C-alpha cells in the first residue's frame, strides 16, 4: 500500500481518490489515527500522514461540491436539450398544421344528383 501525493487538479484528484478507495489503499474518509497508522506502515511520517489526510479530505469535499455542480450543469444541459426537442416538435406540428390548412382542397365526395331538362311539347 502506498500513499500518493494527491494532485490538486480536481479531476485527477477525484480519479485518484476513487481508485484509492476502490482498492482499499487509503481510506481518506476514515479516522485520522487509522490514516496515520496506514501511512506509517507505508513509510510516511505522522506529519505527512496528517497533512495528506486533511488535504485529501479537503479535496474530496471540493470534489463532492464539484460533482453537485457538475450534476447541476448536466441537469441544465439536459433541460436545454429537452427544451430543444420540445421546441422542434412544436414547430414540426405547427408546420404540419399549416400545410394541412393551406394545401389545395381535393374534392373526393361523389355527387348524388343528375341533371334533368324538362321539355313541354304539344302532342300533334
Amino acid at each position, binding site marked *: 500500500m502506498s500513499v500518493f501525493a494527491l494532485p490538486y487538479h480536481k479531476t485527477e484528484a477525484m480519479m485518484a481518490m476513487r481508485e484509492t478507495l476502490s482498492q482499499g489503499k487509503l481510506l481518506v474518509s476514515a479516522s485520522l489515527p487509522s490514516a496515520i497508522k496506514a501511512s506509517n506502515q507505508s513509510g510516511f511520517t505522522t506529519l505527512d500522514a496528517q497533512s495528506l489526510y486533511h488535504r485529501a479530505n479537503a479535496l474530496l469535499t471540493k470534489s463532492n461540491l464539484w460533482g453537485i455542480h457538475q450534476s447541476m450543469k448536466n441537469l441544465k444541459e439536459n433541460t436545454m436539450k429537452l427544451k430543444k426537442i420540445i421546441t422542434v416538435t412544436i414547430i414540426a406540428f405547427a408546420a404540419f398544421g399549416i400545410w394541412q390548412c393551406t394545401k389545395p382542397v381535393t374534392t373526393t365526395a361523389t355527387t*348524388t*344528383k*343528375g341533371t*334533368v*331538362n*324538362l321539355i*313541354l*311539347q*304539344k*302532342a300533334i
Partner: protein
Amino acid sequence: MKKISFLILCGFLGIPSLSFAGASQASFTPTGYKYPIMKISITQAGGVGEQVLYQCAGTTSASCMVDVANPTALSAIGTAAANASIEAATYTTINLYTCPDGTPGTTNTSISVMGTVPATAVAGGPFSTDTNAAGGMIAGTTATFTDITWACSTKSITMTTPFVVTAGSTQNLTLLVDLTNSVWTDANASAGMGGCKADATAAQDICSVMPLVIPYFGSGTPTYERYLVAHINAGTALAVDANAGVNLAIDGNGSVFYAGTQPYFSASSIASTDALKGGPDYNASTRTLSTNADGTIAFQTGGSADNRVGFTAFQRTAVGATHTGTCKNELGTSPTWNYLATRQ
C-alpha cells in the same frame, strides 16, 4: 232538365233506360287552353322524395297561366326549367300543381279555353267560346278565351316506365300535352258540374277536362293513335254510341309508351251512367301499361282497384278501322263490357 224529364218518363213507363248525351253535346279540340302551372315535380313510388322540375315565378295561379296549346308558351316553360339538379333515384310520378303548395281543394282557381265547334258536330252550330257569354259559348266562329272555374288540385301522372336519374347524368324529360277532345259543349250543363261554365238557359255551355299529359323520355319523335270507344253489356257495340276516347302514344321504335283515356261527347254518345251502354269510367290517368306478345296493349287506369277502365288486349288498327274486345274496371262485381274502338 229536358234529359232528366225524359229519363223520369222512361222509368215511369217501364221503358228500359237508355240515356243519350244529347244532340247539344259535342267534344272538340280547343285552339287555346290556358292552364295554371304553379309547379311541376317528380316523386318516387309512394309520393316520396319530391324533386321540383319547374316552379312558376308568380305567387298566384292567375299569374302562372300557360297556354298549353301554344308551342312558344310551352317552350318558355322548358327554358325556365332547364338544367334542374335532381337527386339520383327512380321516379314514378309527375305532379302538376295548379295552386301554391298547401292550398286546400276547396279553393277555386280557373282555366281559360278558346275554340269553335263546327255545325256538323252540334245542332244549331257552329258555336265558339266567348269571354262574356254566361255559358261560355255563343253562335258563330269567332272564338275568344272564356274562363272556367276549377278547384285547386294537383294532377298526378303515373309514368308507366319509371324515370331513373343517376348521379352525374343529364337527360330530357318531355311532357307531351294532348288537347284532343279536352273540352265539350253541352246545352244542359250545370254550373254545379265540375269543370263546366253554364248559364240557366238552353244556350250552349262549355265543359272541360284536364288535357292528357304524356311523359316521354324515349328516343325518336312520338306519334299518336286516337280511338273512339263504344260499349254494350252484351252483343256488339255501335260506333255511334261512342262515349270514350283512348289515345295511344308511340315512340320512335313503334312501341306504345302511353295510353290516355278521356270521356267523349257527341250528339249520339251514350251517357256513362247508362246501364246498357255506359261502360266504365274514363276519367283517370293510366297506372300500368304493357305490350302483349301479339302486339296488343294491356293497360289499367286509376290509382287503385276502383271503377276506372282497364283493357287486357287493346288492338292497334289502321285509321278508320275498328276492333272489338272486352274491358272492365277493377271492381270484382263490375260488369265486363264489350267494346268497339274506331281509329280516328
